[in-house]
């Protein structure tokens, strides 16, 4: 049996009575995503399977699956995060429902019209330095806003960043792995996308490892490097997870300017600093990176 919900647009219309123009967008992680219009605005409608729901949803003993806890966290993060570069919660917060014997959770979020950066890189090629600077400024704004909430995103990568049509702003998606540094207990095992892991993300089962927003700066650095050069700084197809780990924790990639002639030296330095193996060599505050990027 698939872990993804099996839903048609008609069923979605049944579950979300106020929604119209419903279309399947596709699967995303453990969720199926539709788009629909509610009160004249387009939203993404996300559905995930959860274990069979108890009759009384108000019971305090209601067991929350990992999927549900992550969704709860994603919803809360989107609701609380103030950055315009972090995707926002839509009119439907977290709800639990059933249809055709499927126990589901659903929520809505802003539907970003545009393409993700992975798609853009594949179709249009690498980004120019000005685009890299804008990307850095926008996503570090989202990282800062998350950190203001005591959270780290843990899954920053080209596929999770959209370039919005119209204003060309970059928006960070998928706060499902967002990690609450204080009082967190779920998903202590590394989560996210390994090629974009920071070195400390691999070691996070070690409680003494310092994990903070600087981990997200590393992942953003990998993303910026890849988009600037068209090459991933650590990963090549066919790599084993062991070799990927070794490269992320020990390999110093060449400066982007050695791959892209004319690439600015100061932007080189910033990206390489973000890729520092230890948090203490990266930027201590997001504002420092914002200042550096702004001066480029």
């Amino acid at each position: 049996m698939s872990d993804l919900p099996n839903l048609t647009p008609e069923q979605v219309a049944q579950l979300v009575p106020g929604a119209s123009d419903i279309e399947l967008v596709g699967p995303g992680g453990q969720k199926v995503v539709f788009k629909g219009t509610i009160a004249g605005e387009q939203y993404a409608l996300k559905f995930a399977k959860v274990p069979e729901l108890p009759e009384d949803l108000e019971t305090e003993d209601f067991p929350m699956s990992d999927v549900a806890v992550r969704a709860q966290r994603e919803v809360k993060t989107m609701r609380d995060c103030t950055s315009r570069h972090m995707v926002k919660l839509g009119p439907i917060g977290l709800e639990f429902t059933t249809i055709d014997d499927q126990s589901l959770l659903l929520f809505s979020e802003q539907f970003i019209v545009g393409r993700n950066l992975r798609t853009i890189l594949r179709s249009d090629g690498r980004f120019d330095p000005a685009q890299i600077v804008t990307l850095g400024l926008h996503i570090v704004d989202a990282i800062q806003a998350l950190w203001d909430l005591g959270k780290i995103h843990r899954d920053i990568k080209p596929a999770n960043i959209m370039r919005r049509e119209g204003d060309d702003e970059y928006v960070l998606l998928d706060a499902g792995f967002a990690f609450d540094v204080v009082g967190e207990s779920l998903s202590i095992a590394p989560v996210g996308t390994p090629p974009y892991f920071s070195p400390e993300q691999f070691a996070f089962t070690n409680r003494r490892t310092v994990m903070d927003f600087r981990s997200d700066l590393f992942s953003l650095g990998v993303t910026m490097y890849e988009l600037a050069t068209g090459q991933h700084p650590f990963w090549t197809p066919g790599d084993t997870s062991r070799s990927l780990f070794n490269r992320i924790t020990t390999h110093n990639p060449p400066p982007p300017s050695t791959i892209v002639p004319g690439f600015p030296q100061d932007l080189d330095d910033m990206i390489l600093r973000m890729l520092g193996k230890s948090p203490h060599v990266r930027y201590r505050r997001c504002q420092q990176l914002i200042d550096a990027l702004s001066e480029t």
Partner: protein
Amino acid sequence: MALYIQHGHGKSDKIRTALDDGTIEGVVFAARNEKKDNLRACVNEIREGYDGCEMLLDPQFYVSTLTPPNDRYLPEYPYYEAGRTASDFTGVRRIRHYAKETLDYQVDLGLDSLVSPTVIFDSFSDRWHQIALNLADASLERRAELTDPPPLLLSFVFKEEALAATEEVNRFLDTVTQDGWNMKGFYLIVARSERSYNQRFEPSRLAQYLYVVYVLGQINGLRVVCGYTDFVGILLRAVGADAFASGWNQSLRQFQRSNFIQRRPGGQRPRERYSSSPLFNSILLSQLQDIYEVGHLGDVLSGVPLDSQITGASDPLAAGWTTPLSQQHHWQTLHALDESLSGRVRPDLQSTVQKLRDANGLYTLLEAAGVQFEQNTGRDHLREWPRAIGEFQRMAGLASP
């Protein structure tokens, strides 16, 4: 900012002389060596007479855990109590109390920066290290409660062997550079393991110390004041230390835990020394005489104003070279070396390595001419320090491709 005087026993007019001379820009007072009232008077005197001189107090809280302590006037200070053990650091309330007492005293004294209380630790993973972090954390909290307080320097005193554990040092750096740690900087002391005073420093440990200073000062933009240093302070400045402190005797130029533990009185009267920047070392006056006799005096002179005392005499032994002159000359020498730094890490390291090579070559020349040096005036450090710099450059990603 650059060279500070490390205050200790018997200050007489040394601080004023150095300030008048323009070679020092700050003072790190030692609570242990000054009566409370005297310290206040001294702070006021410097405040009135020397605008721009930064004053810090090393509260020397760390002496409270040493037994039996050689604590002199420390029992006069409100935050100090001899004989504290690990159990005295259990519980948040107690830790906060220590931080409050120590910082409030410094605020009352009107110092330019506050220095947090700390304990000495042997390893970046032992319980004392955790206590030191807890004291630092409590100091940040206490400062946040004060109205318009001076900036805070977090103090850490660690044994040089602790620097051997790279991963632990990195974890320490990850911790203290976290966003929530809102200090101005650090006051760092490395407790040396050398039995007697000399310039030696095991290369991998020195490399790690340079890395710590570089990461905090250069990368993270924090102030770093390195206490109890000597010529090695030039290396620390080259990699990003804001200031280094050196005192008027050997125990104030190299921190040894044993100096803070009671011992039988005794010891030799110090022999007069001459600090030579071309040799990157302090040598004995008798050795300077030997150098003069083999015709190389000009090669080892530091080129600072007090050299005139030597050059104006018929020979070094006839120069009337006294201990106070030697001390003042030492600061002139360190100050001049420091002034030659540009504030940019790569070129400063390059020029420092060149000076160390030149110094080594000069030693070779002098030895060939028949000058004999002792172990603590010799050149072992000139082989160790370039290795340390090379290792540091690799660690910091500053090595030439």
